[in-house]
């Protein structure tokens, strides 16, 4: 290890060299980091997905005009589209004409099978600029122009799914919190064992006037290295799994799978995990050692 990074007391080997906690601690921290990385990535991806579901996707609705008389249908469609476009709180009002609808149903019916005589509804997509506005008013206005028209709000389809995604997101967050707490507990147990192993040495240093922070620094240094090694191992394994899963999801193409993705900020957060693990380790060590030292005068 680079000499200048070491606390002075470490250079003097006040505590013996050698593997502490049987060398298992970095691996345990590594496994915990792996789980925390997955939970963090899952939580962030799901929260992006949930935002998409409750955001853009669920703010849209579709008006279907099911009128067998083509002339009347065209007339009603134009009237409703004009009414919707006139509203200031709506955007992206798009009329799906006959040709677009035929293209949509063609995969199911086969090309050339859709004759002019097949009655297709007319559809108008629209999106609320913010939130979901007064659907009842739209409903009323649409019915006044076309009594047989139906309105589909996308939110009604997405709401249960959004609920599931929200639950999964909080599950991921809880797993992350549990993993962090478990890691801190394991580190604290290991530090307590080390404190009693090195109890006589610490007491001797204490009698000779060593400050608490000098003694704590010896432990922090040792454990920071183990935390960093474990953090790096775990984060690399976690990132590998996330990239594989990301590629698998990517094969579904756009749509909802496309929304479940990580932002650059998300990737930065994942890359920072080993440092956070090392910091968590140091903090745990400092608290545990400090508590023990304050028990003696």
């Amino acid at each position, binding site marked *: 290890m680079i000499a200048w990074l070491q606390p*002075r*007391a470490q250079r*003097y*080997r*006040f505590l*013996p*060299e050698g593997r502490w906690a049987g060398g298992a601690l970095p691996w345990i921290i590594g496994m915990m980091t792996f789980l925390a990385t997955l939970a963090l990535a899952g939580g962030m991806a799901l929260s992006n997905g949930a935002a998409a579901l409750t955001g853009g996707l669920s703010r849209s609705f579709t008006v279907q005009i099911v009128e067998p008389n083509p002339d009347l249908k065209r007339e009603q469609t134009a009237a409703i589209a004009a009414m919707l476009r006139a509203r200031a709180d709506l955007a992206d009002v798009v009329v799906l004409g006959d040709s677009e609808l035929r293209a949509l149903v063609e995969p199911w019916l086969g090309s050339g099978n859709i004759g002019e005589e097949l009655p297709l509804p007319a559809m108008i997509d629209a999106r609320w600029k913010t939130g979901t506005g007064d659907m009842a008013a739209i409903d009323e206005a649409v019915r006044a122009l076309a009594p047989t028209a139906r309105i589909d709000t996308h939110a009604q389809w997405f709401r249960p799914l959004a609920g599931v995604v929200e639950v999964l997101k909080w599950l991921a967050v809880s797993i992350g919190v549990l993993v962090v707490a478990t890691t801190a507990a394991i580190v604290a147990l290991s530090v307590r064992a080390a404190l009693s192993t090195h109890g*006589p*040495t610490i*007491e*001797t*240093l*204490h*009698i*000779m*006037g*060593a*400050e*608490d922070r*000098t003694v704590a620094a010896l432990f922090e240094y040792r454990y920071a290295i183990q935390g960093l090694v474990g953090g790096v191992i775990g984060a690399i394994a976690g990132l590998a799994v996330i990239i594989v899963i990301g590629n698998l999801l990517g094969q579904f193409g756009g749509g909802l799978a496309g929304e479940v993705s990580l932002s650059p900020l998300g990737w930065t957060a994942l890359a920072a995990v080993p440092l956070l693990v090392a910091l968590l380790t140091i903090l745990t060590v400092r608290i545990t050692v400090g508590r023990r030292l*304050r028990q*003696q*005068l």
Partner: protein
Amino acid sequence: MSTIVRFDNVGLRYGTGAEVLRDIGFRLETGAFMFLVGSSGAGKTSLLRLLYLAQRPSRGRIDMFGRDITSLPRTALPALRRRIGVVLQDFRLIEHLTAFDNIALPLRIAGVHEAEVKAHVDELMAWVGLAERRDARPAVLSGGEQQRVAIARAVIARPDILLADEPTGNVDPEMAGRLLHLFHELNRLGTTVVVATHALHLMSRVPSAITLRLDRGEMLDPMGVLRNPPPVEPAELSL
């Protein structure tokens, strides 16, 4: 002549047990040499523990270096401990460190520069006859050598006060005499010395020494000379 240690009505109990020290009151002038005697279990080690700040008294007041240490916050104590040298009954050498590194501990804890540490430790090791054992670990040192390492460690940082618990307990009479001579030399150089011992015959080696007798936790001081000691003769210090 200033007072370096002052006990007033000090009592000590461990946990909820009976008091192992009762009504201890004495004054130690800077530069004094004091023997602490008493039968086993009389409380010698307990009194020394109060002196090297490993323990707070359960009652009474202790002043050291002109400060009331019973009311000082914990954080102020390490700096005071660095002015105290201690030879413990069981040496407490650090097993994984060489004789050199053990002796260097107090200097390194105090943050002394490494070049200075090396010079001081090498000089003292030569003086106590351990130059050949520089890189030996405590496990391979003889009892007498370990004791000399412990004593060298206690004095390396030139403490204001040196405390020794049975420092002649594990060595032959000849070595005991030499160690006491070392303490006497340090005392002549100005260090206040407190030595707890069973070996009453050694006390005659330091004629200027005062004696604190403990009997089952109480001080035997019928004349009250320890509460109001005579000043240390300046002539003794300049010897």
